[in-house]
């Protein structure tokens, strides 16, 4: 999806879908149409949408086989590992579904540089070499200078540092890139603008467009990797995954130098006790994963510890290429769990790094601790 003359945002590409009748489209899908989409070497957007339809679930085994083959071809039998480190859960936003939202009475904590270093040492001892740094959205509490220092410090312990923080201007992304960040993770949460407004009630996060355009700014700033995705449960699931796929395709097409990957986090209980209105069961999740792989053969597909151990292990051969392992979503908490700040979401796969590594090996795949050097 190459940008048109003068286009500066992905928004232009999804605006036409504002009044698209997804249910009607799904109702028109036939078995033949599904077969054609599956057979296509290069899927169109409509082919992708066909594979996301309820009817396509009947061809799930074929989808899985194609997805598995494509993944082995382009990624080998490997799963890349990363580990998240939350350094602050202060947040000025009111996202009704999130454990960190400002209305929640939770234990707020921000790590000092010394504490960050202590966490880094503990984490590095597990062998993990790719770190994902996270914060809530409170720029006054975690200004860019603090983030830069944190990154520089972490680069001493990790081959790759990515960030999953509040959206920033391109200038600030460049600063973080200079400090040593090579990857940006930012989930749109929900692509449907109306639903977005319903779940983000206050704070800078209410700015839908600013967030939507952030991965693009990150790519322009030169981050090597950009990881995006929906938060499944906030909006109608099939259209949300469709938009996520389009977004990834748009980034891959317009920023050739950027490695694009997707995550499909599913809502799970958090401190906020939010009941998700929409759901994707395991079967549907697998359909999403395999459809994305068919649509974007070279995109990374990340699965975090929100998913259970048993389920994740089955995804190893279905197209997943990145796993988090040994995760803690509380602030700090690797060194001293008692002293950590409250977590963002409940972790379902609580296995240690070593256990996840073993599971990957048992599936006949190779865990990759390190796949980058910032030289």
């Amino acid at each position: 999806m190459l940008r048109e003359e003068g286009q500066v945002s992905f928004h232009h590409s999804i605006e036409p879908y504002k009044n698209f009748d997804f249910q009607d489209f799904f109702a028109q899908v036939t078995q033949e149409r599904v077969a054609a989409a599956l057979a296509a070497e290069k899927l169109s957007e409509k082919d992708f949408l066909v594979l996301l339809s309820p009817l396509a679930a009947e061809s799930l085994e074929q989808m899985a086989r194609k997805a598995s083959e494509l993944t082995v071809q382009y990624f080998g039998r490997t799963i890349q590992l990363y580990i998240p480190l939350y350094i602050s859960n202060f947040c000025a936003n009111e996202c009704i579904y999130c454990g960190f939202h400002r209305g929640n009475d939770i234990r707020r904590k921000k790590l000092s540089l010394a504490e960050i270093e202590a966490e880094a040492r503990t984490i590095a001892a597990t062998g993990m070499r790719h770190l994902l740094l996270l914060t809530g959205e409170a720029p006054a509490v975690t200004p860019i200078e603090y983030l830069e220092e944190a990154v520089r410090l972490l680069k001493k312990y990790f081959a790759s540092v990515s960030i999953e923080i509040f959206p920033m201007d391109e200038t600030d992304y460049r600063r973080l890139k200079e400090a040593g960040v090579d990857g940006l993770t930012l989930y749109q949460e929900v692509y449907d603008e109306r639903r977005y407004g319903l779940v983000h009630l206050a704070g800078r996060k209410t700015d839908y467009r600013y967030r939507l355009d952030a991965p693009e700014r990150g790519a322009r700033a030169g981050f090597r990797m950009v990881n995006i995705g929906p938060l499944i449960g906030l909006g109608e699931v099939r259209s949300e995954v469709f938009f996520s796929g389009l977004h990834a395709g748009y980034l891959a097409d317009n920023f050739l130098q950027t490695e694009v990957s997707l995550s499909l986090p599913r809502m799970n209980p958090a401190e906020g006790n939010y009941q998700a209105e929409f759901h994707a069961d395991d079967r549907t999740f697998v359909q999403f994963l395999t459809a994305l792989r068919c649509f974007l053969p070279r995109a990374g597909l990340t699965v975090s510890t929100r998913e259970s151990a048993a389920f994740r292990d089955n995804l190893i051969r279905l197209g997943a290429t990145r796993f988090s392992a040994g995760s803690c979503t509380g602030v700090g908490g690797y060194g001293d769990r008692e002293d950590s700040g409250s977590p963002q979401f409940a972790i379902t796969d609580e296995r240690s790094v070593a256990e996840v590594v073993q599971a990957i090996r048992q599936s006949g795949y190779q865990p990759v601790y390190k796949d980058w050097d910032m030289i």
Partner: protein
Amino acid sequence: MDEKLSIGGHFFTSRLFTGTGKFAASEWIPRMLGASGSEMITVALRRIDQGGTTENILDFIPEGVVLLPNTSGARTAEEAVRIARIAKAAGCGNFIKIEVITDMKYLMPDNYETLKATEILAREDFIVLPYVLPDLPLAKRLEDAGAAAVMPLGSPIGSNRGLLTRDLIAMLIENCRVPVVVDAGIGRPSQAAEAMEMGADAVLVNTAIATAEDPAMMGRAFGLAVEAGRLGYLARLAGQSKTARASSPLTGFLD
């Protein structure tokens, strides 16, 4: 029967080069090398964990197999040069495969940056093997710059689509003084044989071997295919020279 392949002063009996990427487990690497007979293998420096607590891929490469570090991950000539120097300093030898890829969509090599990197590294006593989209004028420039071989792609990395660029590769084979090693996109032993029959000096195969259910068996298949293709090429050559000896072999009797 066949002279050894000489690259950078090293002599190779096997004309199959392989790679360490995409294997399900590093234990397959020595098994694959034994079965295939390959004597040179690529390693991405970005995967080497120096001083790390987890396994070191270099430990799985037996003595006697030449290490070919590659600059995978480099986006510019400058980055490729830095990676090469780091690899050499880390004791990986002075062979270097220049792989500069700025296109994450198809993984096409950036010919321009690759040429720049070749010009620098060839002057620093590296044995430079540049990975490029086949382009004859570029190949001549690479030669002039001191490349020890040229590595044209058959089709995009991982695509297993064989010799899509065969006509362009043929131009290089015909006109290059340095060895031509077809690299990337070779998905089947028959495609490797095809490249050798065309007159390629060697092939590099990674994905098709590493991602096979039994990489050792697939490695052996490719080893045999490369030999077969090479023999086929030599046999055809021998036949041609025989016919060429007589100036009018078919109609000479009329004179």
